[in-house]
């Protein structure tokens, strides 16, 4: 054939092989070039954008639950344990663009029949107009009985299916009670999971706890997790939703040494913010600084790891001035550890907890009976209140001075205005809209007339979710209310604060920084923020302390992005 014919001579054979090789080389070269091109050169792509709709749900009824009065354990005949309220708390509510009604839930576990000692439901019906109304409420109580004494302030919150409570202790002398309030119309089936310093605690009776509609149950945490010094309680419910609150009270050598209501905190996350931790008596703590928390007399940060991997936790404490202080530690999976604060001066701090694994956290501050947090401070808050505090703003620890809800829910403008901005190290201008004398709000000493010997108090500050837009702040008559604002963002935020529609002043919170604003007891404010901000209101006096987180309105009513097909 072809090549037989022409391969007669060496030359033509050479030529033939040459041509063939050249063709092969060219072919291989082109192939290599194409593969190289496809591997290296960026080719144009196309990414379509999924169809999405931001759905702002039809506004629904709003319902906040205040957990009700503090209780004491009444050991009855037989095995059953029952509880009785030690008094009636003061409720302060506020509403914007709506009218609210306040009713009491059933409280079968609470032996005291007073409606105001039962959990309070603050209800605003679904609006007819297209305005999203806001409601807010808080409760405050300062009992002084032989078992329960101290200051407990907490916010009224929405019911949820999933709550994390960081606080409490079931060691000897510590009483921790779990309030489960179900405001919904269906029964809630509640499961309680407890983490502790020894790991997850599984015990009988922790699941299938039935909470009837519109009622409250009280469960002693000791029955689920005895002898746990650092419990973290995870409450989940199916069916109806519940508001879970912990009441922790401490008795040291027969003397009551504080009481606290612990509100639900932020869900496990790798980054948490605990705003408004007021530390006092730190110099005494430094003396026995050992790097370990050995007793619940020490201020501490309680960190729990619900996951299955160990977490490396970094706690950064931001003060209003000075450099942040960092504490770093490893927390084993499934356990709860209390971390020390380190060398911090007295003052208000915001803590940022970052972790390699999702964690829950809260901070415990001590309010020693012998230390007046405002006595020595040069920067003692001097709110320049316009009006003298009304009687409604008085401490209401006496069980006899209960108020009708109607009187509390009004917003009649007779409460004192925001008085001044205490801007330690900051530069926000002081505003004095009314000009008047300082108001101490009647804070200071517990006013239980039949006061037994009183020890100190302790304060749990929980991790909060950021607030945005308008937030209503209700201040109870507890002493020295102080608003703490923490900005975790990278840009400074200007926050507007108004009272009864009167704009008071703007506060600029620097990036990654904190500001505090003293408030007037018994007042109601509207805080407006254009960016996400962490906030809480703390109260303090000699031997007293409380912290109330400010939470965003329930996400259930906010807009949600839907990707329909």
């Amino acid at each position, binding site marked *: *054939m*072809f*090549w037989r*014919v022409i391969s007669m001579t060496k030359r033509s054979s050479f030529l033939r092989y040459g041509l*063939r*090789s050249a*063709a*092969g080389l060219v*072919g*291989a070269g082109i*192939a290599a070039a*194409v*593969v190289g091109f*496809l*591997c*290296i050169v960026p*080719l*144009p*792509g*196309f*990414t*379509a*954008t*999924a*169809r*999405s*709709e931001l*759905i702002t*749900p*039809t*506004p*629904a*009824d709003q319902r906040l639950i205040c957990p009700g009065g503090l209780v004491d354990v009444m050991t009855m005949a037989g095995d059953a344990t029952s509880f009785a309220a030690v008094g009636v708390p003061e409720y302060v509510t506020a509403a914007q663009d709506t009218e609210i009604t306040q009713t009491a839930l059933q409280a079968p576990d609470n032996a005291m029949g007073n409606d105001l000692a039962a959990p309070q439901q603050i209800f605003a019906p*679904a609006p007819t107009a297209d305005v999203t109304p806001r409601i807010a409420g808080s409760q405050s109580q300062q009992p002084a009985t032989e078992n329960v004494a101290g200051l407990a302030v907490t916010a009224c919150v929405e019911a*949820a*299916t*999933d709550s994390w409570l960081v606080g409490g202790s079931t060691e000897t002398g510590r009483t921790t009670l779990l309030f489960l309030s179900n405001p*919904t*119309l*269906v029964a809630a089936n509640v499961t309680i999971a407890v983490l502790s310093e020894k790991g997850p605690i599984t015990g009988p009776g922790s699941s299938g706890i039935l909470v009837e509609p519109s009622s409250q149950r009280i469960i002693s945490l000791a029955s689920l997790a005895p002898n746990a010094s650092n419990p973290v309680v995870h409450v989940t*419910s*199916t*069916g*109806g*939703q519940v508001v879970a609150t912990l009441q922790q009270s401490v008795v040291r050598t027969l003397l009551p040494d504080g009481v606290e209501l612990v509100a639900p905190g932020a*869900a496990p*996350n*790798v980054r948490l913010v605990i705003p408004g931790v007021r530390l006092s008596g730190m110099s005494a703590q430094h003396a026995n600084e050992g790097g370990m928390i050995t007793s619940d007399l020490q201020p501490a940060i309680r960190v729990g790891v619900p996951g299955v991997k160990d977490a490396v936790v970094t706690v950064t404490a931001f003060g209003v001035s000075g450099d942040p202080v960092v504490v770093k530690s490893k927390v084993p999976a499934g356990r709860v550890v209390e971390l020390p604060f380190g060398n911090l001066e007295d003052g208000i701090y915001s803590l940022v907890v970052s972790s390699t694994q*999702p964690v829950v956290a809260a901070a415990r501050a001590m309010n020693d009976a012998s230390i007046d947090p405002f006595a020595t401070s040069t920067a003692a808050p001097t709110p320049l209140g316009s009006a003298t505090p009304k009687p409604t703003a008085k401490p209401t620890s006496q069980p006899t001075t209960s108020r009708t809800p109607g009187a509390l829910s009004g917003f009649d403008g007779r409460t004192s205005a925001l008085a001044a901005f205490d801007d330690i190290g900051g530069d926000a201008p002081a505003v004095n809209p009314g000009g008047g004398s300082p108001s101490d709000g009647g804070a200071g000493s517990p006013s239980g007339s039949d006061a037994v010997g009183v020890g100190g108090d302790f304060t749990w500050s929980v991790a909060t979710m950021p607030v945005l837009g308008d937030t209503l702040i209700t201040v109870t008559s507890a002493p020295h209310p102080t608003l703490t604002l923490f900005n975790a963002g990278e840009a400074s935020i200007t926050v507007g604060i108004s009272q009864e529609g009167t704009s008071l002043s703007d506060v600029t919170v620097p990036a990654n920084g904190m500001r505090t604003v003293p408030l007037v007891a018994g007042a109601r404010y509207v805080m407006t923020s254009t960016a996400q901000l962490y906030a809480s209101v703390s109260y303090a006096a000699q031997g007293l302390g409380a912290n109330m987180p400010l939470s965003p309105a329930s*996400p*259930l*009513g*906010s*807009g*949600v*992005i*839907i*990707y*329909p*097909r």
Partner: protein
Amino acid sequence: MNPKVTAILVARAGGEHLSQTLVALAAQTRPPDAVVLVDNGSRGRLAISAEAGQPDKVITMPGVVPFGEAVEAAARTVALEREGDDFLWLLAQDSAPNERALERLLGALEVSPSVAIVGPKQMEWDRPDYIAEYGLTMTRRGRTVSLVTDELDQGQHDDVSDVMAVGANGLLIREPVYRLLGGCDPGLPVVDDALDLCVRARLAGHRVTVVPDARVLTAGDGVIGPNMSLKLRARQRRARLIRTAELYRGMAYAPAFSVMWLWFALGPRSVFRAIWLLLAKRPYEVGGEFRAALAVAFSQPSVSRSRAQLARARTTGWWALAPLRMSRESMRRRQSLERENARLVLEGARRPLHFLSSGGAWTTIALAIISVVTNIPLLGAQALGGGALLPLSSSLGDAWSQTGYGWRSLALAQLDPADPFAWVMALLGSVTWWNPSFALVLLWCVALPLAGAGAWVVMARLTDRVGIRVFAGLAYGLAPTLLIALHDGRPAAVLVHVLLPWLFAAGLRAPRSWSASAIAALLFAAVVACAPSLGVALLIVWFGSVVLTGRYVGRFLAIPIPAVALFAPVVVVQLFSGNPLGMLADPGPVVPFAQASRWEMALGYPTSGLGGWFDLTGAINWGVTIAAGLIVLVLVAVLVALAVAGLFSAHPVRAQLALFVALLGLASAVGTVGLRVAFEGQTAVPLWPGAGLSLASLGLIVAAGTGMSVLRRFSFYPAIAGTLAVGLLAVPLIGGLVVGSGFVHASTGRTLPAYVVATASRDPLVGTLILTPQANGGVAAVIVRGQGMTLDQSSSLINTSVGSGDGQRALAHLAGDVSSTGGQQTEPALKQYGIGYILLAPAVGATSAGFTSDAASVTTRVRSSLDANPSLIPIGDTDAGLLWSYPGASTVDAAAVNPPSETQPWRSIIFSVQILVLILTMLVALPTGPPRADGRRVAEPVAFDDEGFEPVDVLAGDLDDEAV
């Protein structure tokens, strides 16, 4: 008596044929007394030729008229001038008679007065010793049959004299008879004009004979009878004209009472004959069949005229013609002879594959064993789940009803055409009609051997070397892209990989057979239906074949037709919705995957991880990336080196083409993976690049096989090297399949909780709203009806749609409302849309690192809202997620959302057109019908060109051994 002969010569163009004819006319031993030249439409351009022949009269027709009319015009002038016993001799420009033709013809007429018409022996112009035509007859059913065609004239037919009819070429007729019969029938302008004339002459009591010594050449210029060109268009026209004439004569000859019935039967007859034509592999005649029926149906006045004319001259009955008709036996004998001849031509080109003796069976068995081992984890499965696998519809009727057009799943109320993939799924499900989902289990089991056998067949068409064939089969059967598709649960990609070699095998045979062409068309449609993104590359390959094929182009041109018919509705909808890239989206559910980087794709892996080599080297604690990359690179390099070796062979064309296909496949894979047009919730998921890589591996394997064949007898060794390389490459993937590390698992055949399925078995329209929390805190919302999503229900139109219509907004509002408090407001919508269940599926990435706190919080939110909704009843945690039911939903409401009536008329139209195209293609694909030589001359095999280069027909047969 001295009869006068007038030669009537009809010409359309001057030139060689005409001048030869004129010369031959002039050289007659008995010259015609007059020559009338009819200039039929050349508009005077015949002048010079005509002068040369010195005709007695030239008649110029105003335009091109039928032969019969031209003769009639000439005969009329003759009649004006002469009287008496004259003869008319009909000739055309290409009818050169031999010297004594007229003398013999005249002699035949003169000796027997009963004979009115005589015809000469018509010889082929190019081969004057071959008979082109020598007398005509009809079958019992009226079909025209030429008594002799294409035979060497050895005097074997010279004893024939009486025939039913003769062709018009060189026909000599007595002028009075011509007058009596009224000339040729204008209703038969091209074909059968002379036959009809002769038949009428016979009915008038005359005889028709052939004269063996009179010969007339004929070139088939188309002046008399149709143009005899071999071009497809001419063949089609000829077939149409023959059929028209047949039908026309049928009506003209029929008894009066049956004319009406014949007329009504025209339609049904043409339908049946069209089907027969498809089975007979003559699809190009189908159009003409219907045109012929239409033409005859609308020429009834002409038929009446013909019947009147026939009746006028008729003196005897049809019985007189009966002995002259072709008997059934001789007809059968002729057909079997023809078939024999045609087969000889076709069989000459067919290469037996020797599947059993040449390694095909062993390749398939080896792959089947591997397949059995890899499918151990799926043992006993009745359905598959995981990845992009969903069950099929539970009954065959449901599966077929998903095709065409209708209400689509996932969207609230959306009418759209179905994906072509629905046809594939319906066909696949029909294989296991008792449980359609089981077909997927079967597919998983036979994928390896079927793909390997396909590649073996492709290679067997190209080479005789057993080693190379086996290498191709094993290498393609163990290609990473197939194993990964099996591993990840990608049924469409598996189908593409399995069907692709069969498509190429059929394509390689397409130039030789309509059957192969139709099979290729069906496979093309199936492959493109499974991977629309591969359509671009396949169309390029197809276009290249069309360009390279040359004269068999018709059989290639038709290949994309079924695919076009299946895709047209989807393409139209996508174009009108302004989302043209959406038509490339993969069929089936949208499932994200770990996208491979470019270099990994160049090594043949559609997903990252180098097909398990990363994990394997990681487990042995080697430097993961480097070691894995190096191993794979070296193994792939073996194939690449072999492929490149093919480029240096003596005949590099095949290697070049194969490499081109491989690069095209790679380019297709790299290009498609950049397109993110289908959505899973908020995420736009890239197209699956595996289909392109299947094409790339097929091309690379064929190229490597070509490279091996360079070594001729020693090609065994590189074949072993290549087989070892692909075998080693596949080890981690096969291991992964064996231990069941893939996403595929045996499933129960349902995608919704059993609770819903139980309800749906009573109420097949019950809706389930499925909410899936997204990583960014959004919620994806889809609605399925009945027992849940199936593979055949999935629609790329729904998966890719971007615009927001009323349905989407309504669905978004419903989903937003149930995900928020204030559930009372959701009840009317749930009732209106007939939604009985709400399923909160696990959040995107709930089990992996992609889980975000946003997803967690939105999950909590949706769950809380649904829990708090008093109109919903919580059912609890199921295998598919958390379930709530809405007891207020009713079947009536659900039926009102997607009323079946609204799908019409499009559902019927699209379904009928698509099923028609598919059935017709299938009819052509069936290996039936007599092989035909397509009117080509059969006898001489083309002489083999010993000296020349190989033929450029690169798609034809094996070449590597011929050069030895």
